[in-house]
């Protein structure tokens, strides 16, 4: 078969020589998606902004906490989670990552480059998986580094009132790594939504609706409904992994992130079916 490609590939009288005889593999599609991700200036700047905002917001919250500490009630003091205070930037980062995830797909539809992409990889699904892997991995690595910096600088501020924790304290590594995991899964979820909607405005609206608006809507429901529904919402379930003190009635960190991953997986599955079925 491998010998056949060269000859069946060419029409009678023509054999391709100039471009080699490689075939499409998943690793190559990964490489292609990596080139695409890093060759857009907008992606680069949004990620830089996300890194900066996460560190800055963490610092700001820690400075505020230290400043108010002498006047803080005992009950509030007991509720403080030092690692989460330094990682408050999670809420800004999830928006930046959510928008970028949608744009990674919708940008291809808006510019028409999706046709070039699909012509190069006509099985299509490797493109969706590769986009998810590349964007998820980039988000995870970048945000893990960012979270470490935010955590360490935040704790340095909190040390003034001796309320800081260290990375070796129980549950703290889970929080720091958990934020990066949560953001990476958010990015993959956003890619799935982008691939379903194929349109930036619609995709971004859905991501925000899911992560920000839905929890507010549920908060307006009768309280016994709330208790049953809230913990299964995507953002609530996913953020269970990131909370140092588990919230009352919330899922355990492991169960929470599993539910969140299932949301992302289900979204990608729908996107995959549609990608195969629809015209590009």
């Amino acid at each position: 078969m491998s010998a056949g490609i060269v000859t069946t590939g060419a029409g009678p009288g023509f054999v391709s020589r100039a471009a080699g005889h490689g075939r499409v593999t998943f690793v190559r599609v990964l490489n292609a998606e990596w080139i695409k991700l890093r060759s857009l200036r907008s992606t680069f700047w949004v990620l830089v902004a996300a890194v900066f905002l996460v560190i800055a917001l963490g610092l700001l919250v820690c400075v505020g906490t230290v400043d108010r500490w002498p006047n803080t009630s005992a009950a509030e003091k007991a509720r403080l989670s030092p690692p989460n205070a330094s990682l408050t930037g999670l809420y800004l980062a999830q928006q930046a990552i959510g928008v970028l995830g949608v744009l990674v797909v919708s940008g291809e539809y808006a510019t028409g480059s999706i046709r070039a992409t699909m012509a190069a990889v006509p099985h299509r699904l490797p493109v969706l998986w590769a986009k998810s892997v590349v964007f998820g991995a980039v988000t995870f690595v970048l945000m893990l580094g960012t979270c470490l910096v935010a955590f360490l600088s935040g704790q340095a501020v909190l040390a003034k009132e001796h309320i800081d924790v260290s990375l070796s304290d129980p549950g703290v590594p889970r929080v720091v790594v958990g934020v990066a995991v949560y953001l990476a899964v958010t990015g993959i979820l956003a890619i799935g939504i982008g691939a379903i909607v194929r349109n930036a405005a619609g995709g971004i609206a859905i991501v925000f609706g899911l992560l920000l608006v839905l929890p507010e809507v549920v908060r307006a429901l009768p309280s016994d409904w709330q208790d049953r529904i809230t913990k299964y919402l995507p953002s609530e379930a996913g953020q269970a992994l990131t909370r140092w003190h588990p919230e009352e009635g919330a899922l355990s960190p492991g169960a929470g992130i599993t539910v969140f991953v299932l949301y992302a997986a289900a979204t990608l599955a729908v996107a995959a079916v549609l990608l195969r079925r629809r015209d590009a």
Partner: protein
Amino acid sequence: MIKADALTKRYGPKTAVEGLTFTVRPGIVTGFLGPNGAGKSTTMRMILGLDHPTSGTVTVNGRRYADHPAPLHEVGALLEAKAVHTGRSAYNHLLSMAATTGIRARRVREVIEMVGLDEVARKRVGGFSLGMGQRLGLATALLGDPATLVLDEPVNGLDPEGVLWIRTLLKSLAAEGRTVFLSSHLMSEMALTAEHLIVVGRGRLIADTSVADFIHNAAPNQVRVRTPDADRLRALLFGPEVRVTGRERDVLEVTGVSSDDIGRLASAHGITLFELVPQQASLEEAFMESTRDAVEYRVAEGAPGPARTAAAARHRDGEVA
């Protein structure tokens, strides 16, 4: 080699392509002609597996496009100018395309040079002119050194120098034994570039023939005669196929008789001729004629029958324009 067999595509109630069967052979440039909305682009998208046929099949070198393990080596496509992310440079666009199939960066630089984009390859595509976008599209098509090229309106937006360049390039690619399939609205350009034609109208096949035959069949050749005895000569020209028109007083436009026969006839009757000029119909006239038929049959059934000659087509153009 591209083979379409009863290819049909419907979008909801609208039929874009209906029962299209044709073969595009290697070694020559084949033109794909049809008015706007005739289904050319849809057909090309189906060749590349971008749109799924409602029924029928289309294969490239014996296999469905998606079944090729390295489609970029099989088919190079230029589907629309700038099917490229506007925020990316030409070089990075080509590099990412090449990466999917393991094509080296050296080949990327080679095709950039081939299409003359060296100076702007590192600039963002968003700032490219239409002509530069077409050159980039062509570079994308050539990237995998494919045996088959599918090009939708490749000369659109190119300057005269670019048009000449692409014509020469396409002919030389075909001469290497490749299959070259291109659509164009520029009829005169098609007449110079293509040897074979596939003509569609309203999604149906109208003609699958050589350029010469297409012109001859759709628009019979005409002879222009200028003579002071126009009325006498007109009276002598009759026959089942013969048609004489003339807009100027001394000029006859004759179809169905060769210029040789007209010359002999005039000589035998002592008629003086000032001009006796055989005129070949242009591809444009032939195209208008044959696609107008297809359109008219489908739009207005029971309307007056379609005119058959290029002269009539020209006449109507004058009225319409």
